[in-house]
């Protein structure tokens, strides 16, 4: 039934902008996500560079304090809701989940397209607030300030609500796909670890996001109807907002990191030319992280006035997250042990992930410790910690994943030398930007402030210079991708010698993925 003409693939089989905007093909929807998320990343990145530039010197450098607060808010909101949450699942997950499990598409292709449109609608509304009343609440929208500020809180939180719906629908789609669309012989213990990671992420998306949805709706109602649920002046409790918000937003941290861990599992086994060590342990530790993540939200609120008992319990539970995370870490390192490692650009990013994520994770344990957190709370130490996880973890994995799968997605090879250069720039730039922030935090520099005392200036300058290196790294990455699309040499079916199913089809894959329904008789990493 599928067209067997070997020159036809998902890119050239249909033509015209409409064939993209109304496409139900998971691969094309993945590309739509890729283009839009790259655009949002540019916006969020500009905001980040603006923040760092302002903090280059003591006193007002570039903008007013109000403008600074807006930059900070949009940097956070865009990067979290429009880049990192949809990032890996919606781009790489959409494209590769069905290919990984031998399916022709995701379970609900129309819902998949709807998810993209919902993200676009939400993003358009969020960006619209820039032109109405800019928000200055930070991405967390804490009450009671968010009730009182002149920014368009209601529009913004409804925008995030809609983007949340998009995330829920993607998760729901992936769960059903993993359960129901695996090809013959593809048991749950033969799916690639990236699929396990996406599956665990999808569970979190479906179970956690609705709580954010109701929280944001109530906040919108607070603005529109003044219902008083989060407003202390009317008998409401602003701390309840924090509880609700973090009940979603802590699991959301794992929505952001689990897919990255999945990508890294793929990269490490491929470029070590060795079967992954501890497949089951890695698979179940994803589910383990997902499960524990629902019981740790209180660690964002140690100094919010919650009871000491709650603080102690949350502190203990938070440290539990370290167990499944360390299981993954040790399994990756064991996979490397005596592997035939090649340092191509995807692998460089994967190794960068291991290094940076370890720092992010260990400082996370420090922050989980109640007594230490009271000192570090709301300082740059926290900022450095979560950037090590979100950027050093998720974005490094996203970049590694891009470089790994670009040959499959577009059927072309990119400039390996330049790709390695982007790794060097991003990796060094990242450490130069964020490592000083650990020290600044330990010295007591509070986060989110527009200005600081002169004692913090030199470290802030180093940090700002680092941000330029990161910016340059990502700009060159953009060039690498464009250069690859324009001039890239034709990619073979399987340039890395990987063993998972997507590498058995042509690059780029045909519209229906597989000309014949695949039948699987072995695990995903049969190297040696």
């Amino acid at each position, binding site marked *: *039934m599928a067209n067997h003409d070997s020159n036809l693939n998902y890119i050239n089989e249909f033509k015209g902008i409409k064939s993209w905007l109304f496409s139900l093909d998971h691969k094309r929807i993945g590309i739509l996500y890729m283009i839009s998320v790259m655009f949002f990343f540019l916006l969020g990145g500009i905001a980040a560079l603006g923040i760092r530039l302002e903090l280059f010197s003591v006193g007002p450098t570039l903008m007013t304090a109000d403008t600074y607060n807006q930059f900070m808010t949009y940097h956070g909101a865009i990067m979290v809701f429009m880049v990192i949450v949809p990032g890996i699942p919606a781009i790489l997950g959409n494209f590769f989940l*069905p290919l990984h499990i031998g*399916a*022709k*598409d995701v*379970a*609900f*292709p129309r*819902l998949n397209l709807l998810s993209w449109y919902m993200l676009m609608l939400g993003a358009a509304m969020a960006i619209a607030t820039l032109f109405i009343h800019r928000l200055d609440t930070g991405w967390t929208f804490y009450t009671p300030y968010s009730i009182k500020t002149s920014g368009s809180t209601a529009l913004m939180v409804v925008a995030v609500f809609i983007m949340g719906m998009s995330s*829920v629908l993607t998760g*729901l*789609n992936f*769960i*059903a796909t993993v*359960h*129901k*669309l695996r090809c013959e012989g593809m048991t749950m213990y033969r799916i690639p670890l990236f699929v396990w990671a996406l599956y665990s992420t999808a569970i979190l998306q*479906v*179970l956690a*996001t*609705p*709580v954010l*949805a*109701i*929280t944001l*709706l*109530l906040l919108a*109602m*607070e603005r529109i*109807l*003044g*219902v*008083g*649920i989060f*407003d202390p*002046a*009317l*008998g*409401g*409790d602003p701390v*309840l907002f924090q509880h*609700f918000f973090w*009940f979603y937003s802590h699991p959301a941290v794992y929505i952001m990191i689990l897919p990255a861990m999945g990508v890294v599992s793929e990269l490490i086994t491929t470029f070590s030319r060795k079967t992954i060590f501890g497949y089951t342990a890695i698979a179940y530790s994803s589910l383990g992280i997902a499960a524990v993540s629902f019981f740790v939200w209180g660690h964002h609120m140690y100094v919010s006035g919650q009871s000491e008992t709650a603080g102690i319990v949350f502190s203990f539970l938070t440290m539990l997250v370290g167990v499944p995370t360390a299981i993954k870490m040790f399994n990756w390192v064991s996979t490397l042990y005596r592997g035939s490692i090649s340092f191509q650009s995807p692998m460089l990013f994967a190794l960068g992930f291991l290094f940076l994520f370890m720092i992010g994770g260990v400082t996370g344990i420090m922050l989980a410790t109640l007594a230490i957190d009271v000192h570090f709370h709301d300082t740059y130490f926290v900022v450095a910690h979560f950037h090590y996880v979100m950027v050093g973890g998720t974005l490094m994995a996203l970049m590694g994943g891009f470089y790994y799968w670009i040959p499959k997605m577009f059927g072309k090879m990119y400039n390996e030398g330049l790709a390695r250069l982007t790794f060097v720039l991003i990796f060094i730039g990242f450490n130069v930007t964020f490592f000083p922030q650990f020290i600044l935090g330990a010295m007591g520099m509070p986060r989110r402030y527009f200005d600081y005392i002169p004692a913090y200036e030199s470290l802030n300058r180093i940090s700002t210079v680092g941000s330029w290196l990161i910016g340059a790294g990502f700009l060159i990455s953009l060039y690498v991708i464009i250069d690859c699309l324009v001039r890239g040499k034709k990619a073979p079916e399987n340039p890395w010698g990987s063993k998972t199913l997507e590498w058995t089809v042509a690059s780029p894959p045909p519209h*229906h993925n597989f000309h014949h329904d695949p039948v699987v008789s072995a695990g995903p990493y049969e190297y040696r």
Partner: protein
Amino acid sequence: MSTVNSHEHHYAHHFKNADHEFVTSKQGIWLFMVTEILMFGGLFVAFFIYHAMYPEMFAEGAKQLDWRMGFTNTLVLIFSSFTMALGIHYIQKGDARKATWNLSATILCGAIFMVIKYFEYTHKFHLGFFPGKYLDVARVGAEHANLGLYFGFYYCMTGLHGIHVLTGMSLIVWVLFRHLRGDFNPHYYTPVEGVGIFWHIVDLVWIFLFPLLYLVG
């Protein structure tokens, strides 16, 4: 459902057969219901917390609601769940005429529910029981200064539920339209089944809302 015949319905290309499509769709719908329950769950949790903080104020608020109206609405919705279930049953049996009647009755019940809700709302507005900061304590003669919080919950919970009733009604209108066009038969009725599940969940939420808002006090 395992008797679904693959020759009767043109299933999407990525499924093995019509039955495969049916069970997958149903799983998707149930997952969506999980998100609905969790979303309302957040609202219920907030309600319980404030109920524990201000029990007398909540009792005062509950007294202002007319339990007879709420009770009538409960009966209406339970009956509508029954007709919805019958509607699916008759489509499975191939009795198109009875299915039409039952689906129509379900829509009618939804409409009755919304009309009663409308009268309740306008009556409350008339008496000045607005949500949160718009409730004038002196005007309504409230004993508790933050009675607006109770009505904040009342309008948020019943309002969100009301939106779901309207959504459910629109969905039933849609499946009724497709049913009249002859899209469904004993071998293919996935959308009706899905909409039915949604409608039952919406009813179930009301079954919890009614005692909490009207009776517990």
